[in-house]
């Protein structure tokens, strides 16, 4: 793949990891750009697609961690955003045909509920949820990527699920989590 194709191929994945970690479009935009600027600067050569995927995931995780750490915003930004986003009552202004991730999510109450619950998790918990459920990575793969023991990842993922479960009151959402 040419570098241009690589950028297009992994843009969505990188952006989603950044959004999963930070919870907001603005922060995800910053991290997305940082990741791909690093790619453009370093120009790594990938032997295979799995290699490229792992590289982008790792750099996205590193960039988002640095971003959250440097501004002391481990969960603060998420709490602010949560306060703003409560109940989907925020006025939506469409500047163009592009709808922000938050706007799309809050158009559906079920997704909004899940999103609010995710924002209450730690960035690490959200990352594990994302890598496991969306990227379909196995515990061992996640552990290797993040340089952690499998047992640690397993416990942390279990804890994140448990925290999500503890936040919801409606039976519908609980049913969703029990599955």
């Amino acid at each position, binding site marked *: 793949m040419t570098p241009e194709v690589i950028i297009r191929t992994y843009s969505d994945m990188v952006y989603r990891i950044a959004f999963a970690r930070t919870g907001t479009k603005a922060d995800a935009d910053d991290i997305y750009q940082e990741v791909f600027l690093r790619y453009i600067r370093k*120009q790594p050569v990938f032997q295979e697609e799995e290699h490229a995927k792992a590289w982008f995931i790792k*750099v996205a995780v590193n960039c988002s961690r640095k971003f959250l750490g440097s501004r002391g915003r481990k969960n603060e930004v998420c709490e602010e955003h949560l306060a703003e986003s409560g109940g989907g009552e925020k006025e939506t202004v469409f500047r163009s045909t592009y709808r922000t991730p938050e706007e799309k999510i809050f158009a559906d109450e079920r*997704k909004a509920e899940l999103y609010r619950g995710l924002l209450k998790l730690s960035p690490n918990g959200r990352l594990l*949820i994302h890598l496991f*459920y*969306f990227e379909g990575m196995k515990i061992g793969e996640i552990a290797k990527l993040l340089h952690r023991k499998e*047992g640690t990842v397993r*416990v942390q993922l279990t804890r994140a699920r448990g925290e999500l479960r503890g936040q919801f009151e409606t039976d519908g959402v609980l049913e969703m989590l029990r*599955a």
Partner: protein
Amino acid sequence: MLEQDYKELMNEVGPEEAMVEAMVERQKAGRRAAFFPRMMKTAAAVLCGLVVLAGGAVVADAATDGAVRKLFGLKDSVAIGTGGVEASFGEDVEDGEYIRLTDGDELNVKVVVGDDETTYFVCHLSSTKTTLQMGFVLDEDDTEEDCAWAIYSFLHNHVSSRRNDTEFCKSLIVDLEICKEQITGEDLFRNGCIMGIQMMIDDLSAGKATEICSIPVLDYHDEDGDGDMFEYKGDSYVVIYPEDWKKETEENGTTEFVVEAQGGIPGTYLMKVTGYNPLEYTYFDMSMDYSQFGE
């Protein structure tokens, strides 16, 4: 269901097309400008190589040698064969470069750049009696604490099987003490490494050794080690901290943790903490009563 709902949620998330296109254009522009910086890097490498061949106590690459020397607190060192290595710790380091630093004992450091932008140092720390290979993964985003734990956990795991080897421990302490004494300043990595090494020295000096199980490699990205696991004879156990464990340990000198078995012998067990690191990193002496496991 969680999987499906989460996927539906995240499928709504993506970058603006304009941002992606801007990045693609930047990549195209970057390719055209890259040729000239590469030429300069090669010229610098050739120059360094010529200087080394000339002999004498020469620092072939000031930046990286300085960073590595700082890392281990070695002042009077000779760096050999750094060749194309450039920039500071963790950046733009050529894969496979091998640096030999000497300060009494030899400290051989091989620099390996991982494919995920991390820099991996394989360190051969030689004494008159033994050689310790130490490797850890750090990148420019890691903090002081990350560095400390990387070193600590690697050293700890590496020497755990030789805890009762007094001569080995003494030699290791001597080597690390040299590093500790010479490291000064506020450099992030230096401080992190000092902490990691200090923790290791304290552990060995105080004779805190559990020859039975390995100390858990704590995830240094967490604020504490709650939920971390350790293995004992092939079975996994997870540590559950009591809420005020730090205060309790400081006041009483000991704390009892609950340990839940993930496999092997089911149930919960008590583990006593008899040591607490004053640097306030999550560290404890796992003086556990193994008789409760039916030994």
